[in-house]
């Protein structure tokens, strides 16, 4: 086990014109499971490959434990990597695939055998040791790749989207297996994914990247409940958070948020949690609300009538346990394209869609006009110019 420290890590291409990873500073503690998440092309895999030593570092530094490893060969970094494609050697048996790093290290045969058998037992691969990768299912191949990583007993595991080639059901199963394996082995793990569900369910902490820039590093719960900016708010959570342009109205005890023609009353609790809101009185800002905080008013009778809005039902997606409802509301949606540029937070006049997650009890139909209740205690507030969350 070892900690991993990234300091101002940068990867530039085309003489610095393009920055795949931009000034990322991050401390990953010993035994921690950190998930690097972000949309395609955000630089997460490049960052991982720089930690592995497969990509040259343009600027900044990487430490593994107390060792400065910028110029250390991958094999000497005491890491093991699981690739997206698994990268199993197709001409070798499962046994030889797992044993390969140990054979390369010239470990005695008996020791190799013990370690391979142990890894196979942990991953339930004992019955397949003589097979070739081509004769295994996707999940089994994934486990062989894991076996090749754990057999070396490295200080750090690096995983580059290891589940992206599996079908949805197997992915859920393997997700739990990897998380429990990491918990059991206690090895520091950096896991790259574009799937925010993986990020939220597997990691102790999640680091979200956008265009090579680190947006937020936090626990999954904080990423969800306290997003630092509109990009994090929109990226984490499915369906995504509803974001609207709004104006803050009223005084100290009577603060309200104007969404289109509606004025939502802010409870004392929300005001206390966002003291910085006072500064925005009379100004435009972005208000966010998660789909589960928009309820069918018929199923929550005790809502303050002020916080109820009537809306048209555009689409209903029944998921069984709950219902995703697409509503048309009278409010101006804020489209988030980037969190670090004011120009790109654009007001989209034509759009006023609101996605809500109703309980299965709700029986709304397409075309119906419903009354929805906004949970105003759970509103998120962002600066209209910077997109940063408004807190203190």
């Amino acid at each position: 086990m070892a900690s991993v420290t990234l300091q101002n890590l940068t990867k530039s291409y085309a003489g610095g014109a393009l920055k795949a990873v931009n000034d990322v500073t991050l401390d990953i503690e010993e035994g921690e499971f950190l998930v690097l998440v972000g949309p395609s092309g955000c630089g997460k895999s490049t960052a991982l490959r720089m930690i592995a030593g497969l990509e040259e570092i343009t600027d900044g530094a990487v430490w593994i434990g107390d060792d400065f490893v910028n110029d250390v060969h991958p094999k000497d970094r005491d890491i093991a990597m699981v690739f997206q494609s698994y990268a199993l050697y197709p001409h070798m048996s499962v046994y030889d695939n797992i044993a390969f790093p140990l054979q390369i290290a010239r470990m005695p045969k008996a020791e190799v055998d013990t370690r391979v058998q142990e890894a196979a037992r942990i991953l339930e691969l004992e019955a397949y040791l003589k097979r070739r990768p081509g004769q295994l299912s996707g999940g089994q191949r994934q486990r062989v790749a894991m076996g090749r990583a754990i057999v070396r007993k490295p200080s750090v595991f690096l995983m580059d989207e290891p589940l992206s080639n599996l079908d949805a059901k197997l992915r859920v199963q393997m997700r739990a297996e990897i998380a429990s394996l990491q918990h059991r082995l206690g090895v520091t793990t950096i896991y790259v994914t574009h799937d925010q569900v993986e990020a939220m369910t597997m990691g102790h902490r999640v680091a979200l990247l956008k265009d090579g820039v680190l947006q937020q590093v936090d626990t999954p719960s904080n990423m969800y409940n306290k997003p630092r900016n509109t990009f994090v708010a929109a990226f984490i959570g499915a369906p995504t958070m509803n974001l609207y342009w709004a104006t803050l109205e009223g005084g100290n005890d009577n603060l309200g948020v104007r969404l289109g023609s509606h004025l939502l009353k802010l409870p004392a609790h929300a005001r206390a949690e966002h003291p910085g809101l006072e500064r925005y009185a009379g100004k435009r800002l972005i208000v966010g609300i998660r789909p589960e905080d928009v309820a069918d008013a018929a199923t929550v009778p005790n809502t303050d009538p002020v916080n109820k809005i009537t809306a048209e039902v555009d689409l209903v997606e029944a998921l069984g346990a709950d219902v995703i409802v697409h509503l048309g509301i009278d409010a101006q949606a804020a489209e988030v394209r980037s969190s670090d540029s004011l120009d790109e937070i654009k007001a989209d006049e034509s759009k006023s869609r609101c996605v809500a997650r109703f309980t299965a009890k709700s029986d709304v139909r397409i075309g119906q006009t419903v009354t929805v209740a906004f949970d105003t205690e759970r509103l998120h507030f962002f600066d209209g110019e910077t997109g940063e969350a408004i807190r203190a």
Partner: protein
Amino acid sequence: MATARTYDPELLRAEKRRRENMRRLKGLGLHALLIALLFVMLYPVIWMVFSALRPEAEIFGDMGFIPTNWTLENFVRGWQLYGNLTFTQFYINSFIICALAIVGNLLACSMAAYAFARLEFRGKWFLFAIMLGTMMLPIHVQLIPQYIFFLNIGWVNTILPLVVPKFLAHDAFFIFLMVQFMRSLPSELEQAAVVDGASYWQRYWRIILPLSMPALATTAVFTFINTYNDFFSQLIYLTDTDRMTVPVALRLFLDPSGGSSSFGGLFAMVLVSIGPVLGFFLASQRLLTKGIATQGIK
């Protein structure tokens, strides 16, 4: 509203039969044409096979296609060329040269190809372009300087000029072939090996080489065929009769000075000499078409 539609099943069946007959007729015609063309092309070989199986005197005396007297005498006499010199010796010579050429090409060309395909070094593309350029040099341009060079170092009348260049990655075509193949291998396989601690040599020997089996098989087959059939270089570099190879030895049946030539023996031995090429090709055909590289991916 759906409209009522009718059709005649009998008419449909008749149409289907007519189309089926037409298809068969076309197939038959095409096959007949191909068989006729095949016969024209194979005629010299068939004629040679029958000539080898008829007495010497009948070869040019009897214009009939099928021999009237069948005999294996040509094979026996052909094999024992004269004195102690039999084709056993020529085959041994040919096989030694072929085996060494194959080993040399496989090792040297694959190493050069690995460097060009996977390693980064200064001047790589320039060297690659020069290597490709050598493919365009006609053999006749290289022949005399090479002969003089080998003569000066005393290698003429040994197998060294035929074999040593193969160990020095002399065949640019095979390097090119393997470079193209190795480039198609997933780079993640090698990166995984890098993280696993494998050195350049281990990556080449344990990962890239086994995965390049189809390209290696192609190289082996073509090296064998080229070397085995290489009459010209073997003729100029091997002068002693006991060092001669099969294609050079076949020439001994003919007397260029107009004396007695043994056409029966020649045809019989030419027939036998086709065997190894055909056998080698058939044996390695499976490898030629087998692509195993991507099985471990995804």
